[in-house]
C-alpha cells in the first residue's frame, strides 16, 4: 500500500463506528448560553456587554485583546445575564458571558456581518477572519488569522489540510468532509489565495474512504490540490506528524510548521472559513461529535458555541446508567469534565462519554524498561527515562532529556504496561519548567 504515515505512534481502537455514518443534525437553541472570554490560544477577550444588554445572534460581545487573541460573538439572541466566573472546560473557573436565550426569537442572523470574499485583498480577508472570531476547530483553538498572516521572513510553500482526525471516537471532520466537501474546497481556495501558495495537500486517514471519495469527486478542476490517504495511526493529526507523513520533512525541534514552509489547518476550520464568507455570519456554531458507549444516542451535531454540556447530552437522549467519565475532545488528549454546566467552546471537537469498562482504574507498577514508550513516542523521546526523572521531581534533568519537545499526545501512557501516568507527569514537568523560567526572568529583571 502506498499509504503515507509518520514513524512510531500507536493504534488505539478508533471506535468511530458509533457516529461515522450519522448525518449532522442541528441542535435547537438551549435556554442559556455561556461564552467564556478565553476560548482560544492567546489573551482572553475583553467583554463589550453588561448585564441586562440585549444581544442578537452574531453580535460581537467581547473584543480581541491584541493580535494573538480572538473576539467572541453572541451565538444566540437574548439578554446578557452577567459576566462572571463559570466552570471552564480546562477545570478552572473563568470569566464568561451568560446569555438567556429569547425563546420566541427566530434567531435570524443580521444581514451579512462578514463581507463577500470575492474582490477582497489578502489583508482584508485576514481582517475579516479575525473579526469573525475564527480559531482552529481541531482542538487547540489557535486564532486562524494569525496563521493566515505568517511573518514575511518565512515564505509559505504549501497548505496542509488536516483531515486526519486521529483521535478515537471523533467524526466531526469526517462528517464535514462527507457532507460539506464543496465548503472544504471553497475554504481551501480562500486559504491558498490568502497565503499566496500554489500547492496544497489534504491528508485523510484511510478509515474515512468515503471522505476521500467525496472530496475527490467534488474537487474543482482548477485547484491543484492532492487528496492524500494516510495510514490510520495516532497522533497523525498532530501538525508535526502530519507534515512528516505527507512531505517527509521534520519540523525542527522547538520550531513551527512555517519554518518548513507549511501552514497546517484543520479541515473543519477550513470549511468554517468558507461558511463565514458564504453566510456572512461570524463563528457562532460548530460541529461536535457527541459519542461514546455512555451516550444514549451518539450524534454529530451543529451546536451554538457556548451550549452547556447538560443541554447537549439531553438532546442526545441523555447518559446511560454506567457512564463514568465525560471527556471534551478525543479520549487521547481530551480533558475530563466534572460539571455538566460546563459550556462547549469554539475548540470543542467532541464530547465522549466513557463507561467503567474503558476507564477502570489500573494498578500502577514500577517501570520494567520494556521500551514500548520509546517505540510509541512520535517525537522520539525516552519516556521511560523521563518518567523516572519525573517521579523524582528532577525537572531540570527532564529538560535535558528534551521534555519541552513532548506534545502530550499520551501515546506513552497508552502503551505503558505498568500504567505509569507518563504524559500526566510530563504535563506537570513542562508547567514546572515554564514557571521556573518565568521566576528566573523575574529575578533577573529585579
Amino acid at each position, binding site marked *: 500500500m*502506498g*499509504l503515507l504515515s509518520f514513524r512510531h505512534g*500507536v493504534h*488505539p481502537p478508533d471506535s468511530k463506528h458509533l457516529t461515522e455514518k450519522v448525518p449532522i443534525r442541528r441542535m435547537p437553541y438551549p435556554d442559556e448560553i455561556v461564552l467564556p472570554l478565553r476560548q482560544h490560544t492567546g489573551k482572553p477577550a475583553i467583554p463589550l456587554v453588561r448585564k441586562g444588554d440585549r444581544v442578537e445572534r452574531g453580535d460581537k460581545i467581547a473584543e480581541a485583546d491584541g493580535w494573538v487573541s480572538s473576539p467572541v460573538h453572541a451565538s444566540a439572541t437574548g439578554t446578557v445575564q452577567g459576566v462572571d466566573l463559570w466552570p471552564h472546560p480546562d477545570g478552572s473557573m473563568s470569566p464568561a458571558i451568560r446569555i438567556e436565550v429569547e425563546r420566541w426569537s427566530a434567531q435570524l442572523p443580521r444581514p451579512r456581518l462578514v463581507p463577500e470574499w470575492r474582490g477582497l485583498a489578502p489583508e482584508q480577508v485576514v481582517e475579516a477572519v479575525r473579526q469573525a472570531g475564527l480559531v482552529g476547530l481541531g482542538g487547540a483553538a489557535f486564532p486562524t488569522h494569525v496563521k493566515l498572516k505568517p511573518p514575511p521572513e518565512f515564505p509559505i510553500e*504549501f497548505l*496542509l489540510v488536516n483531515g486526519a482526525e486521529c483521535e*478515537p471516537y471523533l467524526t466531526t471532520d469526517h462528517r464535514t468532509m462527507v457532507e460539506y466537501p464543496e465548503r472544504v474546497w471553497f475554504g481551501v481556495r480562500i486559504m491558498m489565495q490568502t497565503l499566496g501558495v500554489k500547492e496544497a*495537500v489534504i491528508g485523510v486517514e484511510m478509515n474515512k474512504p468515503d471522505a476521500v471519495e467525496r472530496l475527490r469527486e467534488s474537487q474543482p478542476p482548477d485547484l491543484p490540490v492532492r487528496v492524500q490517504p494516510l495510514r490510520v495511526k495516532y497522533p497523525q493529526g498532530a501538525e*508535526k506528524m502530519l507534515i512528516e507523513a505527507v*512531505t*517527509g*520533512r*521534520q519540523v*525542527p*525541534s522547538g520550531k513551527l510548521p512555517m519554518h518548513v*514552509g507549511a501552514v497546517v489547518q484543520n479541515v473543519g476550520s477550513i470549511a468554517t472559513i468558507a461558511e463565514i464568507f458564504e453566510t456572512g455570519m461570524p463563528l457562532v456554531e460548530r460541529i461536535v461529535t457527541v459519542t461514546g458507549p455512555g451516550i444514549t444516542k451518539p450524534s454529530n451535531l451543529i451546536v451554538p458555541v457556548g451550549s452547556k454540556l447538560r443541554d447537549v*447530552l439531553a438532546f442526545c437522549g*441523555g*447518559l446511560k*446508567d454506567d*457512564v*463514568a*467519565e465525560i*471527556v471534551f475532545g478525543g479520549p*487521547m*488528549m*481530551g*480533558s*475530563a469534565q*466534572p460539571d*455538566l454546566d460546563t459550556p462547549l467552546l469554539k475548540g470543542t471537537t467532541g464530547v465522549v462519554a*466513557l463507561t467503567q469498562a*474503558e*476507564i477502570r482504574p*489500573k494498578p500502577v*507498577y*514500577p517501570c*520494567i*524498561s*520494556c*521500551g*514500548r514508550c520509546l*517505540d510509541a513516542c*512520535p*517525537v*522520539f*523521546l*525516552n519516556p521511560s*527515562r523521563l518518567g523516572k526523572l519525573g517521579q523524582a521531581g528532577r525537572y531540570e534533568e527532564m529538560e535535558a*532529556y528534551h521534555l519541552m*519537545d513532548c506534545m*502530550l499526545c*499520551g501515546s506513552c501512557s*497508552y*502503551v505503558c504496561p*505498568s*500504567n505509569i*501516568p507518563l*504524559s*500526566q507527569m510530563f504535563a506537570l514537568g513542562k508547567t514546572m519548567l515554564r514557571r521556573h523560567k518565568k521566576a528566573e526572568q523575574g529575578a533577573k529583571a529585579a
Partner: protein
Amino acid sequence: MIDPRLELSASPHLKAPDSTPRIMWSVVASLVPVIGAAAYFFGVSALLVIVAATAGALLTERVFGRRGSLGDGSAMITGLLLGLTLPPGFPLWMAFVGGVFGIGFGKVIFGGIGQNVFNPALLGRAFLQASFPAAITTWPKVMSGFGALRGDNLALPLMSPNADTVTGATPLGLMKFQHEATNVWHLAIGSVSGSLGETSAILILLGGAYLVWKNYMNWRIPASIFLTVIVFSEILFLVSPTRYPNPLFMLFSGGLMLGAVYMATDMVTSPVTDRGAWIFGFGIGFLVVLIRVWGGLPEGVMYAILLMNAVVPFINQATQPKVFGTVPAKAAGPAKEAR
C-alpha cells in the same frame, strides 16, 4: 437528568490492554514446555529442583518484597529460570537458598521489580556456583526412568551431597577438556547431560518466538547474541577446525539458548533502546565465546550476561533516541508522492 458521579482522570483516557503482570505471566506460560522437557529428560528430580528454587524465590518475595508483588509474576519467573539453570541432581536445599539469594539480593534490596541491575535468577546461580562448586557441576545422565532421583536431591542442609551418582559430562565439558564434540541434533532436542534448561533448544526457541510474536520480548537481543556467537566462532573455526568447536555446536550447547532467549531479554536488566539491544547482545555473544574458548570454565553465558547487565545504564545513556526535528531531514518536496 440526575447528575451522574463522574470520574476525573488525566488524559489519555484509553489504555492498551497489555499489563506488566500479563507480560510476566506470559513468560511463565512460555516456560512450561521447557520445564516439561526437563521433566521428560531428567524425571522427577527436575521438577523437584525447579519447585525448590521457585519456592525460595516466592517466599523471599512474599516476606521481604512489596505487598502484593507476588501477583506480578516476576518472582515466579526468577524461580523457574533459576531452577532451569541447575543440574537435575542438585540438592533441593541449595536450590532453595539460590532462590532466596536471587530474589533477596538480586531484586528486593534494589527496591523490587524494575529496580534491579542484575538478572536475579543469574545472580542466584552465580551465588550457588561460588558456594557449591562441586554440586553445581555434577551432571547426571539423561533417561533413566521418571521416578528415579538423579542425584542427592534430598541431601540435608549444610551436608555435602553424596558423590556416588552416575554422572555424565556436559557437551561443553567434553569439548573443553576432552575436545570431543556432541551431535548438534542431540543438542537441539536436549537429550544431553547438563542443567535442566540447557537441554531443549527447540522448545526454548519456540517459547521465545511466542513472546516475540506477543511483543513481550525484544528479538534484537537474542538475534544479536546468536549472530555474534556464530560469526565469532566461525572465524575461530576457520582458523583451526580441530582446536575450536564449530559455530552450530557453540550455538546449541550449554546455556546459550536459555540465556539468550530468557535471561538476556529480561526487560528490567537489558537496554531500553533498540540500538542498545544490539550492542548488549553483541557484548554477550562476544563474552560467551571468549569465556568458553579461553576461559577457565566450560560455560560462560551466566557471567557474560551478568557482566553486560552491569553496563546497561551506560548503553542506555549512549543510545538515547534522536529527538524528532534534531536530525537533518532528507530533502523532500511537499508534493512527494507515496513512498
